[in-house]
């Protein structure tokens, strides 16, 4: 008799335990294994979505080695352990009332120039920005000069070798128009 009661009690306790687990995992909205979803995330705040903060973060490189800016890294690689900290640092500096440029300067002072997604436009870095444009301008000038020389030489050769056209200017213009009409 006592055995039967104890079995019933055991089943009741077991059912209660299973119910508690189910309630904990389902009713309370807990997932089966949180680790499968990666690092636990903090809820998004208004500051996280602030376009001003995002604009600053897009100019600063994450130090995890991904090559992305802080904003893109923290909203893409959710396993990155660097970008959330760097984001918090940006938020803290903004809360101190620092301007965008001051925040960027603070990061440069801390991490060096390589924290910027593009080198600042001063000193040797100017070569980075202007050498391609200068090279193209010089190449264009060279090309135009060469083309002029070629076309002048071709004009001279044509005037020396070609017999005068046996046609009136009107006929020549008509011929030119006809040739223009041909595809290609």
């Amino acid at each position, binding site marked *: 008799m006592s055995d039967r009661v104890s079995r019933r009690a055991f089943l009741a306790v077991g059912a209660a335990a299973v119910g508690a687990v189910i309630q904990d995992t389902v009713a309370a909205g807990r997932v089966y294994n949180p680790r499968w979803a990666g690092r636990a995330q903090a809820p998004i705040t208004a500051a996280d979505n602030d376009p001003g903060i995002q604009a600053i973060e897009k100019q600063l490189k994450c130090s995890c080695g991904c090559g992305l800016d802080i904003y893109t890294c923290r909203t893409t690689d959710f396993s990155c352990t660097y970008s959330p900290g760097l984001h918090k640092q940006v938020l803290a500096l903004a809360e101190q009332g620092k301007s965008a440029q001051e925040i960027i300067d603070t990061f440069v002072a801390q991490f060096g120039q*390589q924290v910027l997604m593009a080198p600042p436009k001063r000193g040797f870095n100017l070569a*980075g920005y202007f050498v391609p444009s200068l090279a193209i301008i010089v190449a264009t000038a060279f090309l135009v000069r060469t083309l002029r020389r070629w076309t002048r030489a071709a004009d001279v050769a044509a005037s020396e070798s070609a017999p005068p056209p046996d046609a009136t200017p009107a006929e020549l213009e008509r011929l030119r128009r006809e040739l223009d009409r041909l595809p290609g």
Partner: protein
Amino acid sequence: MTLLGHLSLWLAFLVGLWGAVTGFAGGLQGRADLQQSARHATVALFGALVVAVISLEVAIFRHDFNIEYVAAYTSRNLPTFYLWSALYAGQKGSLLFWATVLSLFAMLAQLLTSRRHRAYLPYVAGVTCLVATFFVTVLLFAANPFERMAFTPVDGRGMNPQLQNPGMVFHPPMLYLGYISITIPFAFAIAALLSKKLDADWLVAVRKWTLVSWLFLAVGLLLGMWWAYVELGWGGYWAWDPVENAALLPWLVMTAFLHSVMIQEKRGMLKKWNLALIIGAWLLSIFGTFITRSGVIASVHSFTQSSVGYFFLVFLVVAAAASFTLYATRLPLLTAEARLESMVSREASFLFNNLLFIGIAFSVLWGTLFPILSELVQGTKVTVGPPFFNQVNVPLGLALLALTGIGPLIAWRRASMPNLRRQFAVPVTAGVFVFLILMVAGMRDFGALMAVSLGGFVVATVLQEFARGARARHRQFGEPVALAALRLIGRNRRRYGGYIVHLGIVLLFVGFAGMAFKTETQATLRPGESATLKSPYGHVYTLTHLGVSQYHALNREVTAALVDVRRDGKPLGRLKTEKRQHVDAAGNPTFEPSTEVGIRSGLREDLYIVLGGLVDGTEQAVYRFTINPLVWWVWFGGYVLVLGGLIVLWPGGGPQAVKGPRPQAGYAVKLEAER
């Protein structure tokens, strides 16, 4: 199998050396027996390397984890689909794959080249065997995929989750095919220089191979962009990463070549330039390989740092010195047969087009190498990221887009003012019309405004060319206009296929312009809660988090979040985004959890949803919602570009198929006596 793999690599090394020696000796001495031996060597080289590839694949499928490469890139529970692609998932395997494909191309160049270009073939065999031997040397002495370990692990490390995507199965081979096949045009260029047969004949042999290379590289780049977009989760497709840049460089140079080669074919000009472009494109492909495999520049794409970088650096320097020395000795033989007659001519516009292509290539190369240069000069490391590349390259890209429309409108040799007026009237009007419409619609982003307006100009140019050609056929043969337009493509595939490529480029630029209007927001949502996001078109998306489920699939534990999507209150369906924790056969986690993006793609915009993670292990999810306008046009533009490339590549139909001299102008008339 490793013994067979080792032996076949050594055999490939010896056969490659033999092919190189007999190829060059046979060509220089004119000995038919050596030439034939070199040709056979390319077949034997391919055979030996195929045996090596099969050996490695067998080891991968048998899970022989005693082989370091198999243990490093595969695991027992890796899906079969990805067991195949494990061949090129790592440095060593990809080098073997590279050498094998190169030997395949070397063999095909010998088998498929027409008889009239036979004089070049011994040298082509020599160059291709030499390059393949270099890769086999790297495999044997620095990156042997058959290397065994002192112990055998129970399971392998598995493949990086981001490589477990269909895009990654096809993207690397396509890129490799593009990279590797550049060796064939390069080999023909060296053959022309060595044999001193520098007339337009080598160009005919080389043009198709360059097109093959260009097309593979284009497909590889596009697949890479697609993979980055659907897999990486950052919401973009091009990040100006050094390795992406390295793949773009030879493509730009080859595109310049495919334009300037027309001037050499039609007018016998630019011989020096064209040879330099082909040599440059190949050297850039080796440079790209050096960047990817040496770790000299930090990149997310790079293989692990190893000594192979030194091999590639030495090879690059030696190859560049040898190629340009040979080139310099042949300069007197490369004089132009004709002179440029006018600054306003198709030839001149192609020269400016070349200038821009090379200018963009230079600026990309400069930006890629600038961090190294900065460290050398000022001792400071700098980062050269997308803001730099966009600032420098967007204006150049727009100028190039303008020339895409201008070039076809200008006549060969010399364009007259009436001709220019007649040609430009409709396209310029179309471009201005598009510009005004966009202004009225409120578009103010200068880059995007110019890209779409110039796109309108180029599309009008192409349509005008098609309309004129079709009308001419309609007049001449009485064909219906639609049929005439189709036959137009069939009869001159190169020209009209090229125009279709131009249309593809316009679509790509329009797609790129769309990214200027990207909008995004982050939100933390409990089941049943919603976030809203306004699209650039003014639509309001309501995104409701439905819940999170977890389950096991293949080699991973999946956390899936479901989102209900409504636009302006109208239901559009549900999107799923996932976190995947890959596990080994024993269920232990192997890598950091990766993200699978939920994408709803449309003509106007893509809705792009990323699950960031969960709050405190509950169903409260952190999302990033992004609206990417016009991304679909990038992929569609890619299809159009590839279609145009295939039309150009398709055999026959070109003007060169016509025997005898082609009339430069006027009408072809059959004389009485010819009948």
